[in-house]
């Protein structure tokens, strides 16, 4: 009797993944926990280990194919002895891939640590004596999580003492599934010249709102080339479409005089370096935004249109847009409002390094309440970013320039930093945006307030 193995719940409320590599062929005999295949989700690449020892009777997937949680990946023949840890007619789709998913992006190639599957324990130990400790949640919440297929270990709790609430579980179940069901993919020829990368496959973007009209036949005007989008590119495209389509964006511009702040940074650059920290403008921007968000919680929120409610977050976790090799990545830094600048700078340096080295974890990439995108390094005089859905606002920062400013009748050179605050007009009005932006500008202009956390 063949035993099908389905795509396990990957946690994070992810509902589908793209097959990147298949490590086995039909007829292969594999050991338990041997790598079967590698899948890419919205967030990371994950290696799926074999749930049992046995012979691969039939392979149902191929690289590039998109699969949903619960879809059959391979079928095992009866020849292999069941690996004790998991024996069933159908290998359990509700089973979590790992009790505590440890997905690490390693230079674009990630693997999920094959932790102990939910299998036989030697002898039942008294609950409560478990080493790692249970996730704080009420029994009814834990039951809800099982029903929704959410791995509680992958949910950060918003309740008192970090307790995971029903709302946290529902949010985790909904997260990552905002895209509609993408129809089956059509294979496209693999682009040449990138042997290490499995081929990207063209497939339609999930639709939001308006049906796009058909494209003209461009061939009539000259030769064309069709390049399939990578999974990450497609995810970004879909998210941006969602945000731009759903959220009425409005942008407020301002400039902050950061002459004093710049001097302060330069004065302390060396002593910070002595402590292994690179002091950057971004650390101060994060602090200024965080303190202003505490004052203006409307911008530290998400709109729940179905409930007709604004979900105000009583924590300040800031996303920092980073242009990584694979595409745009937004790692998140937590509780910025409560941390001293030097600590923020240190964390920022570490996070940037992790992202550059491709070692950001899922935890690094989620839970943000507001995003800052600093395009200053690349030049330009300003930009209007798109809100990182489902947040309410995003701060765009361009390159600071010395400009001639009139002060007390004198023309003096001052360093001015162009800022743009783009926000959801459903949630806030122009005056609110102006007040919030002013709060940020004032903090940047008076760095003492940042140092004092005022």
């Amino acid at each position, binding site marked *: 009797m063949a035993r099908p193995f389905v795509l396990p719940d990957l946690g994070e409320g992810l509902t589908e993944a793209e097959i990147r590599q298949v490590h086995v062929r039909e007829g292969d005999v594999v050991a338990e926990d041997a790598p079967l295949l590698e899948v890419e989700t919205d967030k990371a690449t994950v290696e799926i280990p074999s749930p049992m020892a046995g012979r691969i009777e039939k392979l149902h997937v191929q690289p590039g194919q998109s699969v949903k949680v619960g879809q059959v990946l391979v079928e095992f023949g009866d020849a292999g002895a069941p690996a004790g840890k998991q024996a069933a007619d159908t290998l359990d789709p509700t089973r979590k891939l790992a009790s505590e998913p440890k997905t690490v992006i390693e230079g674009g190639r990630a693997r999920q640590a094959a932790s102990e599957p939910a299998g036989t324990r030697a*002898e039942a130990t008294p609950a409560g004596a478990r080493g790692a400790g249970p996730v*704080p949640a009420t029994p009814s919440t834990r039951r809800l999580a099982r029903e929704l297929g959410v791995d509680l270990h992958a949910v950060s709790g918003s309740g008192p003492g*970090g*307790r995971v609430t029903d709302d946290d579980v529902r949010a985790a179940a909904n997260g990552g599934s905002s895209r509609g069901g993408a129809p089956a993919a059509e294979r496209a020829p693999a682009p040449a010249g990138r042997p290490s990368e499995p081929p990207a496959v063209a497939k339609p973007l999930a639709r939001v709102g308006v049906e796009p009209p058909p494209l003209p036949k461009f061939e009539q005007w000259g030769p064309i080339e069709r390049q399939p989008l990578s999974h990450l590119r497609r995810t970004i495209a879909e998210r941006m479409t969602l945000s731009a389509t759903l959220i009425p964006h409005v942008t407020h511009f301002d400039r902050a005089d950061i002459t004093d702040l710049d001097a302060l940074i330069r004065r302390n650059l060396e002593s910070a370096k002595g402590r292994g920290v690179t002091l950057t403008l971004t650390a101060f921007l994060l602090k200024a935004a965080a303190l202003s968000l505490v004052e203006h919680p409307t911008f530290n929120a998400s709109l729940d249109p179905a409930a007709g409610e604004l979900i105000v977050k009583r924590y300040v976790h800031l996303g920092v847009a980073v242009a990584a090799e694979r595409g745009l990545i937004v790692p998140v830094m937590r509780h910025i409002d409560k941390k001293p600048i030097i600590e923020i700078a240190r964390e920022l340096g570490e996070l940037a390094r992790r992202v550059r080295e491709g070692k950001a974890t899922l935890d690094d990439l989620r839970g943000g309440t507001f995003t800052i995108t600093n395009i200053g390094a690349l030049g330009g005089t300003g930009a209007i970013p798109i809100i990182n859905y489902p947040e309410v606002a995003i701060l765009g920062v361009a390159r600071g320039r010395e400009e001639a400013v009139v002060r007390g009748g004198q023309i003096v050179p001052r360093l001015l930093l162009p800022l743009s605050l783009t926000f959801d007009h459903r949630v806030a009005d122009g005056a609110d945006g102006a007040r919030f932006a002013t709060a940020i500008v004032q903090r940047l202009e008076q760095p003492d307030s940042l140092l004092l956390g005022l």
Partner: protein
Amino acid sequence: MGDLVREVDVAVVGGGPGGYSAAFRCAELGLETVVIDLEKRLGGACLFEGCIPSKALLHVAAVLSEAERAKEFGVDFGEPRISLDPLRKWKSERVIGKLARGLAGVAKGKSVEVIGGRATFEDSRSIRVTGDEPQKITFKHAIVATGSSPATLPGLDVTSERLMDSTAALEVPEIPGRLLVIGGGYIGLELGQVYAALGSAVTVVEMLDSLLAGADADLVQHLARRCQKQFAAIKLGTRVTGLRDTGGGIEARLGDGAPETFDRALVAVGRRPNTPGLGLETTRARVSERGFVQVDERGRTADSHVWAVGDVTGEPMLAHRAMRQGKVVAEAIAGRPVAFDNVVVPAVVFTDPEVAWCGLTEAQAAREGRAVNVAKFQWAASGRAATLGRSDGLTKLIADPDTGRVLGVGIVGPGAGELIAEGALAVETALLAEDVALTIHTHPTLSETLMEAAETLLR
């Protein structure tokens, strides 16, 4: 002659708390379910030779000791006269019989048939029943709930009527003048106190260096102090090195000491799982070296048709754990996404004073090198304890130093077994000590001690 073959959805082997809880839930979920029980009855060791009869006898002991204590405030009932026949009759008919009839009624109401006989697995889909109602049962799923039996004393192979296990002792065959209790765990101490209250001179011998190994020392201390008054002797760190029936009594050698003679001895050195003879080797289920059936978090063995619940799956061997496991397994069989993910399995020792704990203990935290905040409230400061004349109690709360979350609760004192329920709720639902402290607790009650302990963590 052909076999009588019965086809069912679920066959439950064993009618104890784990077995009947599973069977009832299976039936509620629309599965045709039978229970196969050696004695053709529901209740198991818990009802017939464990929790219930011991608590009935402990109640008798409590009445005796309260009557004795009443002299303190000027009430003298005189010397008690104990008649064993009415006592045994009350225990077996008014207590056990009433509850057994209740369970039988529930089974009937849910159309769960109880088959009498010994069940032996023949393969992953069938069981042979031998005994009064011989038959073959084929099942879609089987639940092993055969429980545990009192362990015998290793190395001392004595058979004697004077040598009792807990089952025999609960029958109260007589009130021995001198009783030796081998084992200072919860069974030995509970029954030791029963017999001491009935008038026996009780000697407790324990191999380890403390009574109730596993419970926090500051909780055990209160119980040990009382035991010292009630018992003739408590010998810790002492092995029974010799044991024989001399015809007139049991002669025991304790450690290096000279032989002592007792009228009876009670062996209470733990329980072992009832797996031998079950035929589990004909299935894919695996049994550990110590005889426990190995199950995953849903209660399933390595055989997809065979599940197990209760004592037979390992420690802690407690009826309430088995009952929860039984419900989980039933729902898992019905295809629901469930698991035995309970954080706490509260433990209660029904001695006087009672000792109860749940979740993380202080000793365990120390063993794991885990930082915790511990709040203690001595009952000497409790108004309710003073009115009861029982200030020999302690309530403590173990909390996470970062979040303030309640990780464990330990209580010693009269009624600790009831009080621990609030602790279990707090730990299971991940409450903060603050939540406990800010909840109004009735005054004057012993439950206030939990609130008081929690308050000390807020300062």
